[in-house]
């Protein structure tokens, strides 16, 4: 009888709830890293080496960017000046590159305007390489020539 009575008691499942709002903010962000920050082209005989490869070999580039949905991400490079050794100059355009990796393109260096290195759509991490070469000519005055290359990563 007692057991029967207990069996009749309804199971009294209870529950209470509360809610919380989860917010996450992601702002625009970009980071650019290179495997080498210096490029060197060793001296060579123009007849035997018309195009001198950079001693460092291919330069690995990692571009990280956060952008809006379907936002454009571009990487450009511009020379600070022509190659210069004292009063002697060699056009920056004597330096060219080939490229590998999704979004990367070949190009020619310019001191006048930024040149496209790579472009992508959307946020993410992108890697590729640039392999630089220098057009070797008999006409260059002797000397040690330098310039700076400014890379710019832009996330729209």
């Amino acid at each position, binding site marked *: 009888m007692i057991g029967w009575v207990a069996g009749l008691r309804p199971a009294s499942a209870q529950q209470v709830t509360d*809610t919380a709002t989860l*917010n996450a903010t*992601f702002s625009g*962000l970009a980071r650019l890293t290179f495997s080498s920050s210096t490029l060197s082209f060793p001296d060579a005989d123009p007849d035997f080496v018309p195009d001198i490869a950079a001693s460092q070999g291919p330069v690995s580039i990692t571009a990280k960017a956060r952008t809006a949905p379907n936002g454009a991400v571009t990487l450009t490079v511009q020379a600070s000046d022509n190659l210069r050794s004292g009063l002697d100059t060699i056009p920056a355009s004597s330096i060219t590159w080939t490229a590998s990796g999704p979004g990367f393109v070949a190009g020619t260096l310019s001191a006048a305007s930024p040149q496209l290195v790579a472009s992508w759509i959307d946020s993410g991490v992108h890697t590729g390489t640039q392999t630089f070469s220098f057009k070797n000519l008999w006409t260059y005055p002797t000397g040690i020539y330098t310039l700076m290359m400014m890379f710019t990563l832009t996330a729209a």
Partner: protein
Amino acid sequence: MSARRLALIGAVALAAGVVPARAQILELSLSPRVISFPSSDPDALPVVVAAPVTVSYRIRQNAGSAWSLTVLAGGDLISGPSRVDISNVTWTATPAPPFQSGTLSKTVAQRIASGTGNVANPSSGSVMFRLANSWTYSTGTYTQTLLFTLSSP
């Protein structure tokens, strides 16, 4: 025992049987109710930690029965057309037990704490939500609702 006395006992027992059992009394509150992950560099902070949420709860008239606290996300983190899978959000909680760590789900309520019996005095736990940070997220302010449910048995 006479037949008359048996009938009397039966009547008393039947009356007791239809009286509703005393229901458990459950109380639950969260503070704060807004959990925010600030924007941060994924290289510097691969995991973003939000300020802890205090979960206060009280369970009465539940002697011998189990109770559980679960959390269910209303969906992925959403910002316009962009979304971040809610499984990128995990939590750690103290004290353990009764609290436990876990990963948010939008399909199955995940247990965040459990126990047996009463919690006579208001008790509390601290829950720290963590977001796996990534360069692949599109910019924006993402939001989603979390439903906490304290239930027994």
